[in-house]
């Protein structure tokens, strides 16, 4: 591949990679820190995307829509975790049933979206979608730059929250030692519930980014299972800087494959990378 093409692929991959990090950061929290087998995370992403689409029909900018929907998703996340904990986490066979539950939830979300919006692709409109920035011979789609910026903001804010606030540190602590946390006066269940709420809340804004970056249709969630879990696992479960690094790696890999082999092979990259990580270093880059 000519160098020019490679450089373009890498740069596109960097932009894409940060976006992947943003959509995976919620999973890094839910699965990485809380050990919840949250297969439905990508479905919530798609739900967020459709939320942005719906508000977009009233003329609301997608990013604004994402911000507005964040508290709604946060509350939803609280509810989902509460239910999950009450029904599954307390019993010994949590694994099989918990997984089946989230699979069923993802499935129901997909079908509900089909019923509500149909199977056609939906897009959203904004001033920054459709235009490109020219730097030398490079053309960078502005919407990718916007996604890149927002993604960095989202990941960075979450990383700071986890390391500098009491609740954030409690969340990291609950991942490591629930008993110690309880002895320090924090209720592990409420901390986990709060964390899951945050993880779901990110799906609102990340979902908005999703529909900015590409058109969405209800089945998109299944494709993103590969991407989000690839990033979350490669990151080293629960690590925020790891999520960013892993996102970049996936983005660049996918971009290069897209340029050299074409679009029909691109979906397999995330899953292939995931299998590779599981085979070689399941703890991920920054794993504990």
């Amino acid at each position, binding site marked *: 591949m000519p160098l020019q093409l490679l450089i373009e692929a890498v740069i596109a991959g960097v932009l894409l990679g940060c976006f992947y990090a943003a959509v995976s950061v919620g999973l890094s929290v839910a699965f990485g820190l809380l050990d919840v087998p949250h297969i439905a995370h990508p479905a919530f992403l798609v739900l967020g995307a459709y939320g942005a689409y719906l508000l977009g029909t009233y003329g609301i900018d997608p990013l604004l829509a994402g911000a507005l929907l964040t508290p709604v998703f946060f509350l939803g996340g609280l509810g989902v975790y509460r239910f999950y904990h009450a029904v599954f986490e307390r019993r010994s*066979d949590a694994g099989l049933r918990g997984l089946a539950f989230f699979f069923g939830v993802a499935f129901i979300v997909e079908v509900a979206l089909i019923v509500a919006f149909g199977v056609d692709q939906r897009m959203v409109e904004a001033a920054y979608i459709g235009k490109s920035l020219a730097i030398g011979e490079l053309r960078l789609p502005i919407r990718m730059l916007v996604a890149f910026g927002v993604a960095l903001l989202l990941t960075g804010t979450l990383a700071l929250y986890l390391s500098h606030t009491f609740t954030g540190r409690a969340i990291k602590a609950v991942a490591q030692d629930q008993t110690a946390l309880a002895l320090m006066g924090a209720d592990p269940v409420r901390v986990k519930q709060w964390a899951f709420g945050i993880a779901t809340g990110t799906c609102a804004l990340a979902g908005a980014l999703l529909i900015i970056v590409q058109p969405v249709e209800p089945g998109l969630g299944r494709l993103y299972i590969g991407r989000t879990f690839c990033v979350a696992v490669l990151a080293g479960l629960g690590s925020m800087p790891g999520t960013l690094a892993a996102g970049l790696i996936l983005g660049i890999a996918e971009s290069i494959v897209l340029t050299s082999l074409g679009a029909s092979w691109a979906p397999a990259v995330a899953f292939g990378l995931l299998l590779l990580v599981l085979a070689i270093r399941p703890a991920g880059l920054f794993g504990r």
Partner: protein
Amino acid sequence: MRDWLIFGIGAAALLAGAVVVTQTIENEYFFFASYVVLQFVVLATAWNILGGYAGYVNFGSAAFFAIGAYIAVALFKAFQAPLLAQLLAAMAVTGLMGFAVGALTMRLRGVFFSIATVAIAVICETLVVNWGFVGGARGTAILQPSAPPLFGSYTRMLFVAMALFAVLSVAIARYIETSWIGRGLRALRDSEEAAESLGVPTLKLKLFAATASGALMGLAGAPFALYMSFIEPTSAFSLNYAVSALAMPIVGGTGSWIGPVIGALLLGSVQQIVTVTVSSELNVLIVGLLLVAFVVAAPQGILGLLQRLFRSRGAK
């Protein structure tokens, strides 16, 4: 021993009935619908060997099903291979797939196996879509061989064959369940650490279950192309197979071989009725809703509900 005798008699009666039916019933749709239901019996039973007995959830059943179909198609197109050869090859490949996914992930937590099965499903579909020999994304048509003697059509012969596969897979599941293998699987499902410390070779047993499950799913899929006279990726890899393979054992009851049979018969029939009377999207939605409802409210499935009912009756 006596239990197996009863089982054998029942199975023989079922197969005899299947043959009789091919000679007497005129309505082709009956065979179509029954074939699909029998196919789900095999698929659900296969899923349960790994999911119910060992506790490892396979989300990629569609891949095993479809690869079974596509391997059979490839052999048929390339060598005009007889049905038996197609079946054996399909089972070998899908059994190997199950083994490979297990070998990769079973030293890790169970959720990683499940995610790997999603990965396998997407990767297989991508590979098949790019495989020109079997028609790629547009699929390919298959010409059914001429009907063997005794049966009016090749389709009817496949119907009896699928009934045979259903009996076979249930027999295998029953054997595994009631043998020392089944007890070992149940032990490692309940507490892998304890099982390992009590002499159970957990990794070997898990790999065995994964291989057996994969092979039987391939068996369910192998005759698919010949039955439909056509195959293309979207329907072969349909999400419905993945959800049904999961929902049928859970609804029926994962603890025993009877559960998947009940679930397949029930949900399979419901699906056929709904698809014909309303729509196929609604059909898939119903399966998903039932799955969630049972997982939450009746985790032991219909079998569990029946057992509780009889136990409370007995107490009175």
